[in-house]
């Protein structure tokens, strides 16, 4: 057990260390595209770590998490648009471009919709929960598609990246390290959270909701709070991706995006928090390398995902830390 623990922390340390070294390595190879690519993976990792809180620990399989990602991104996009042209957004407020205003607001708005979606969805469970969250995400997708004032289907370009006192977010390195710091902070916060009494209750609800109720807890309340926290983190990641690509579109809320986030969590190893970080890196590296082979890279990625599901349980994190169980005998041959 002690050995296992140390191996796990060592691997975690190694992955974060590696991520910290990406910019210098990229500069050494004179390939700044690497920074952009890894930055994207970092941002998806933020959203996926947040999703892992509810999937891996709470047993709430949300197939609509892209909704919060998109809501966060549109918050940044819409506020930025008004800040740029000085037009009225709401009650005479002309939006904002300050990260310290926009990002917390993105989290708040996402958490607010998370509360509404959660309240209705959490009345159901299992497959119903998967499908109802999917349907809610579609609802928001179509909302933004028909929001012609903010670009509708074509999306919305950000005129400026958000501003943060003392930092230049246009600088690749600065933005990369900012996202890296945010990922670390989110990861650290969630690790503390799942180790706390609150986290134990969430895990308890996943295992046996009736028992938790008998112990005097209100499972719905705990699950709802966890859902909102996860939504808020998704919103934050959305605001970051809006800044990263300087463009916001309904594509961010498309259901395949929710699927992608789930793939990241499961591929990396759900219920480990650090797993989604591996998952995001693995998926993006896989995509990038397959794209260089063939434009039809998805025809290879699909079967790879299936093989991972069938033969590796516990994902990459389980594999690296030796906790993964090969589910089928022949799995050992492939390991």
């Amino acid at each position, binding site marked *: 057990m002690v050995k296992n623990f140390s191996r796990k922390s060592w691997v975690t340390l190694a992955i974060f260390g590696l991520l910290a070294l990406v910019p210098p390595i990229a500069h050494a190879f004179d390939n700044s595209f690497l920074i952009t690519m890894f930055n994207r993976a970092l941002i998806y990792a933020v959203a996926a770590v947040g999703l892992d809180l509810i999937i891996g620990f709470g047993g709430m399989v949300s*197939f609509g998490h892209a909704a919060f990602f998109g809501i966060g991104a549109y918050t940044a996009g819409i506020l930025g648009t008004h800040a740029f042209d000085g037009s009225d957004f709401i009650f005479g407020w002309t939006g904002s471009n300050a990260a310290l205003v926009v990002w917390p607001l993105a989290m708040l708005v996402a958490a607010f919709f998370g509360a509404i979606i959660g309240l209705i969805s959490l009345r*159901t469970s299992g*497959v*119903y929960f998967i499908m109802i969250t*999917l349907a809610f995400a579609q609802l928001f997708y179509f909302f933004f*598609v028909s929001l012609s004032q903010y670009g509708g289907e074509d999306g919305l370009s950000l005129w400026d990246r958000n501003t943060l006192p003392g930092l230049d977010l246009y600088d690749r390195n600065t933005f990369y390290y900012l996202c890296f710091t945010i990922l670390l902070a989110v990861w650290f916060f969630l690790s503390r959270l799942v180790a706390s009494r609150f986290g134990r209750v969430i895990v308890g609800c996943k295992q046996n909701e009736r028992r938790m109720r008998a112990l005097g807890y209100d499972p719905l309340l705990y699950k709802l709070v966890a859902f909102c926290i996860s939504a808020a983190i998704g919103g934050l990641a959305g605001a970051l991706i809006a800044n990263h690509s300087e463009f916001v579109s309904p594509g961010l809320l498309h259901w395949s995006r929710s699927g992608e986030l789930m793939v990241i969590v*499961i591929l990396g190893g759900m219920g480990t928090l650090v797993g989604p970080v591996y998952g995001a890196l693995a998926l993006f590296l896989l995509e990038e390398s397959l794209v260089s082979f063939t434009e*039809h890279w998805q025809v290879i990625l*699909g079967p790879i995902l299936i093989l991972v599901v069938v033969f590796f349980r516990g994902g990459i994190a389980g594999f690296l830390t030796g906790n993964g169980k090969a589910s089928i005998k022949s799995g050992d041959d492939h390991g």
Partner: protein
Amino acid sequence: MLLFLEQLLNGLQFGVTLLLMASGLTLIFGIMNLINLAHGSLFMVGAYVGATAIAHGSGFFLGLLAGIAAAAITGMAMEFVIMRRLYRRDHLDQVLATFGLILFFNEMVSIIWGRQPVAMNTPDFLSGTVELIPGAPYPAFRLAVIVTGIVVTGLLYFLVMKTRIGMWIRAGASNREMIGALGVNISLLYTVLFGFGAALAGLAGVMAAPFSAVQSGMGENILILTFVVIVIGGIGSIRGAVAGALLIGLTDTLGRVYIPDLMRLWLPPSVADGAGASLASMMIYILMAVVLAFRPRGLFQTHG
């Protein structure tokens, strides 16, 4: 009034297409407890193969058969190679694996047929109109879709409720060990059942092809609507699938036509059209939220 009747029939026709998808999906889910996101891919395979066969002069019925057969074979191969490893797994694993299948099929289709949509015309003998009531011509093909859907669903209901195979299927849904112990080859039964569900998706695909562009990714839109149908109706219930499909088909079709008009009563036209269109496209999801808020397990909840 005539417009309303026409829209009602259009809604019915859309509902029937959804019903074919939903009954296949809910049969597989209700009995094998398997979430198959790739059910939409089978719809797509049916549409592509059907449209291609017809474009090469096979004639409508042979094309229809080709589409159904292609979907059924694809479905059975899918079950045999991948799905049977996942019956006892978490729903999460099933979602991920079938998500991988979607990526595979979408890309495979664009490798074979290219990125451009494939067009399919309605067959000549169904390209006219029928006067249901005097003065109200209605496209014959749409009417044929409605009739086919109703007949097929009726047969399905009979098969599941009244025949011996149906009895095995229902028994397998309640207790798979027991039905296996009684000497039924359950693994064969499941492969066949999966193929049957796939055939229904293929049929829906060929019949929907003239109304929509046959292109990569076409399966997902209808898949999500099918999920909404099943969730509203109650997972595993054929009656629920019927109720859900008609409710969604009518709500979506009528909503798109009438909601903008209704909004014009309160709002200036320019605002009403935009808001109306956006509300109309969200309508079925709102309906689903309302239904589930009151009945979390759907309108016709089944066992378990």
